[in-house]
Each structure stands twice: as C-alpha cells, then as structure tokens.
C-alpha cells in the first residue's frame, strides 16, 4: 500500500508487518498532501481499518493458542518433578489414568529413570528426567516470551486502530464543518 501520507508519521513506520497509522496534525494539510478528496480519504482509512482487523483476528488466535499451551507445559513439568521426587524415595508412584473416556486404570511407576516427551508430528522421544525437565522449562520460557511479544504487537495494533478511527472522525467532522461554511457564504436564493 503506497504511503499516501508520509510526513506526519510518528517514531515507527511499521512493526512486524503492521503499518503504522500516521497521526494527522491538521486535516486540511493532510488532504492537500495526500491529494485525496474527503470521500477517497475516508475510503482509504476504512480500508486500513479492515486490514488492521484481519491482522487482529490472526494475532488473537495465536494468543489463544499460546495461552492454552502454557498451562499444559506447566502440568508436564509438575509430573516430571513428581517422578523425580519419587525416585529418591523407595516406593513406586501409583496413579490412576484415563484409558478412554470415563474409563480409568491403575498404573504403578517404579523408579522412573526416563520419560517420553511428545514432540508433535507423531514423534515421541525418550529423555532422562533431568533432560526432560530442562527441555520443558525451555519450552515454557519460550512460550511465555512469545506471548509477551504477541501482547505488545496487539497493543501496538490497537493503537493504530484507535488513531485511524480518530482520524476518520476528524476528516468527517472537518467535511461537515466545511459544508457549513460553504452554505453560510453561498448567496441564499429567496
């Protein structure tokens, strides 16, 4: 999308593919500079808004995925920690697990030397308890870091949406104002 309004930009022009919405100091100069009439300017702003909405949907979906993933990883870490704790003791860990929906079975886990981790794509790898804990911890930290970046992206995006909405309102108001002025100065037909 060609930058039709360039000289009023704020510090960043875009962030990770999201174009910044330039802040308009003065509607008249903005329209002169971009060479657009009011309706085209409004159409351009609406289109921008639509693009922002599309990106927002995508980011929100990613955020939901990450927010679901993090508790899962924490649960895994919990279990690995429990297995490690039991290893020092003498007794086995007895647990009831779900065989199928509504059907549970009992398992006796003795001296867990290693665990298997599901890596995705139908791949499961065996790790020692320590290695598994380390891997899970790394995954957890990465997920949390990604989530932070995502949240920052969303905030930036919402700011651009707000700026665009305010600019739309101001261009519209300016137009109304101009029409009033023109009506006032036009000689009235009696």
């Amino acid at each position, binding site marked *: 999308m060609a930058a039709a309004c360039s000289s009023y930009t*704020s510090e960043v022009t875009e962030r990770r593919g999201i174009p910044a919405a330039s802040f308009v100091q003065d509607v008249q100069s903005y329209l002169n500079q971009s060479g657009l009439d009011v309706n085209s300017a409004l159409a351009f702003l609406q289109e921008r808004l639509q693009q922002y909405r599309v990106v927002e949907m995508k980011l929100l979906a990613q955020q939901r995925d990450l927010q679901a993933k993090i508790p899962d990883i924490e649960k895994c870490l*919990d279990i690995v920690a*429990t297995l490690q704790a039991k290893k020092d003791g003498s007794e086995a860990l007895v647990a009831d*697990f779900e065989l199928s929906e509504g059907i549970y079975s009992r*398992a006796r886990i003795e001296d867990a030397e290693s665990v298997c981790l599901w890596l995705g794509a139908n791949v499961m790898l065996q790790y020692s308890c320590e290695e598994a804990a380390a891997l899970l911890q790394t995954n957890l930290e990465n997920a949390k870091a990604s989530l932070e970046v995502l949240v920052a992206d969303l905030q930036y995006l919402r700011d651009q949406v707000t700026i665009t909405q305010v600019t739309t309102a101001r261009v*519209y*108001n300016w137009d109304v104002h101009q029409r009033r002025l023109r009506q006032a100065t036009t000689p009235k037909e009696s």
Partner: protein
Amino acid sequence: MAGDMAGTSGSEVEVTWEDQQNINKFGRLNNRLHELHDEIKTAKETCENLEDASNELILTDEDIVRFQIGEVFAHVPKDEVETRIENMKEETSKNLEKLEEEKESVVAQMAELKKILYGKFKDSINLEED
C-alpha cells in the same frame, strides 16, 4: 469500543499528538480492564475449588488420596495432599491480590484520563462502555 469521537456540531477542536496518545492509552487500559475481569473471575473460582477440596480432605477418612497431577490421579498420602493444597491456595490468593491491585490502578488511571479528555473535548468524545 469505548472512545468514539462523535461529530455533533462539526466544530474544530484540534486533536494534538498528546491527545491521541491519551486516547490510545485509554483504549489500552480499557482492554486490560476487561482481561483483568476475566482473570480475577478465574482466580476466584480456583480459590473456591481449592477451598472445597481442602474441606473434603478434612472430611475423608482415607489415608491415600487421589490427587490430580497433570492428566493423571496419583495416589498421594493425605498429609502431602494437605500441604500441596495449602501451597496452591496461598499462591492463588497472592495472585488474586496482585490482580485486584492492578485493577484498582487501571481504574484510577482511566478515571484520570476521562477527566482530561472530557475536559478538552466535552461532547465530541464518548468514553463510556456501550
């Protein structure tokens, strides 16, 4: 979303970059407030569940309790379960406290921004939840 600029009279109140930043900040705070409402609700539910669990624990006469770790129910001695639940309860209530504090701060900041923005724009801006 909160923060429409309605063109009532079409009058020219200039919007400065500072105003825009205030409006942006208000929008961000409003979003955070909604998120906090949900997070506080979840934390309160967790607190209640833990409370119920520890009450049930007192009533039971079994020595071994099936305690959920991850996706399985491990057989854990009652004392250990009690300790675990106590720790979880404390963690959850600390988290809840932190969330409530953040909520108060957000509400205060929003009130401050409302004063500033309504002060400058009066009727031309709407910051209420619809």
